[in-house]
């Protein structure tokens, strides 16, 4: 029993001695330097990530704003088109639709006014396009563009609206006018795109 106690005591002393001997041991200073370098690098990386994430957020917000503005613009435009369609419907019904169209025609500079050749309406009627006047005996000019005509906007269909204009409007398109009938009106077909805008006009006789 005494032997065992002695051994226990001895073991405790040996352990204490071992602990004391190792008490002053520590890592070499290079490790601290490496750690601090790693810490600085990590801080730089974190900062970079934060900055880049801010840029991403800014870009995302800008994209959202752009989308919102686009949606608003599209709605506003479609509402405008609806208004124009409603106006056109009213014009077709009302007895004075010609003046508006006349006004519009006066403001538009014709881009191809040189083609004045008159051909029968049947020969150059585009497919899938409603013809305003089915009378075979009518003759008409080629469609004269009223503004920049985007063919894409006509691919989805269009509408031809028959209107009456003062003959003086022919001058604006470079067409000859009989001064004797200057005060008379002339029939015209206005080609409306799906956007509701008048894209071209032709004069019918």
């Amino acid at each position, binding site marked *: 029993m005494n032997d065992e106690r002695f051994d226990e005591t001895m073991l405790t002393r040996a352990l204490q001695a071992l*602990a004391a001997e*190792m008490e002053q041991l520590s890592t070499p200073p290079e490790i601290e330097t490496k750690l601090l370098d790693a810490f600085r690098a990590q801080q730089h990386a974190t900062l970079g990530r934060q900055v880049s994430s801010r840029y991403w957020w800014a870009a995302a917000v800008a994209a959202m704003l752009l989308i919102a503005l686009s949606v608003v613009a599209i709605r506003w435009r479609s509402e405008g088109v609806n208004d124009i369609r409603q106006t056109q419907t009213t014009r077709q019904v009302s007895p004075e639709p010609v003046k508006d169209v006349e006004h519009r025609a006066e403001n538009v500079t014709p881009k191809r006014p040189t083609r004045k050749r008159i051909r029968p309406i049947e020969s150059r009627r585009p497919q899938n396009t409603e013809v305003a006047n089915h009378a075979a005996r009518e003759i008409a000019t080629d469609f004269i563009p009223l503004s920049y005509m985007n063919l894409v906007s006509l691919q989805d269909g269009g509408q031809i609206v028959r209107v009456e204009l003062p003959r003086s409007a022919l001058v604006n398109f470079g067409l000859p006018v009989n001064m004797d009938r200057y005060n008379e009106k002339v029939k015209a077909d206005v080609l409306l795109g799906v956007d509701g805008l008048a894209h071209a006009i032709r004069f019918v006789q």
Partner: protein
Amino acid sequence: MGTIDDSELLRSMLAGDEEALALLYQRRQGAIYRFALQMSGSKAIAEDVTQEVFLFLMREGHLFDPAKGSVSAFLFGVARNHVLRRLRVEQLLSPLGDDADQEGPCLLEELTRAETIESVRKAILSLPAKYREVVVLCELQDVSYEETAEILGCAIGTVRSRLHRARALLLAKLRPAEVEDADSTAVKSARCFA
């Protein structure tokens, strides 16, 4: 700055304070290094483990939960995991045990203090890891039973029983040498007289 506790230092460090890291490192690196050294017996492993522990603290320091224990216990826990992983990888456990067993009869043959300490150190290294860690923490690092239980993730009773068993194993490794000491001395004397 010296009165700031470890948790506060850790918080400052995570907020980007380099000085807090330096202070925390200077305060805790010694214990972590010695723990790793006493567990592995290798300076290289101890240095690597110490570095890895503080790198882990830099990256994953937010995992520390003051409700679960002290920063010191957290660091010891991380160090323990790293040491055990390294020992598994390098398969140092069994060779050390075998060597110690082979050297068992010769332990304490020399009665000089330095050699006794060395023998104890070798005997500790020859212990199974679960006993070695409680000896290192409780006997060499002077960590309380409660904190050791936190580090090891076990009950205090388990720590006590493991420590008791570990001491018994150490005595068993050291005692035969002492018992044989008289015989070997006699043999030596006989040889000298021969």
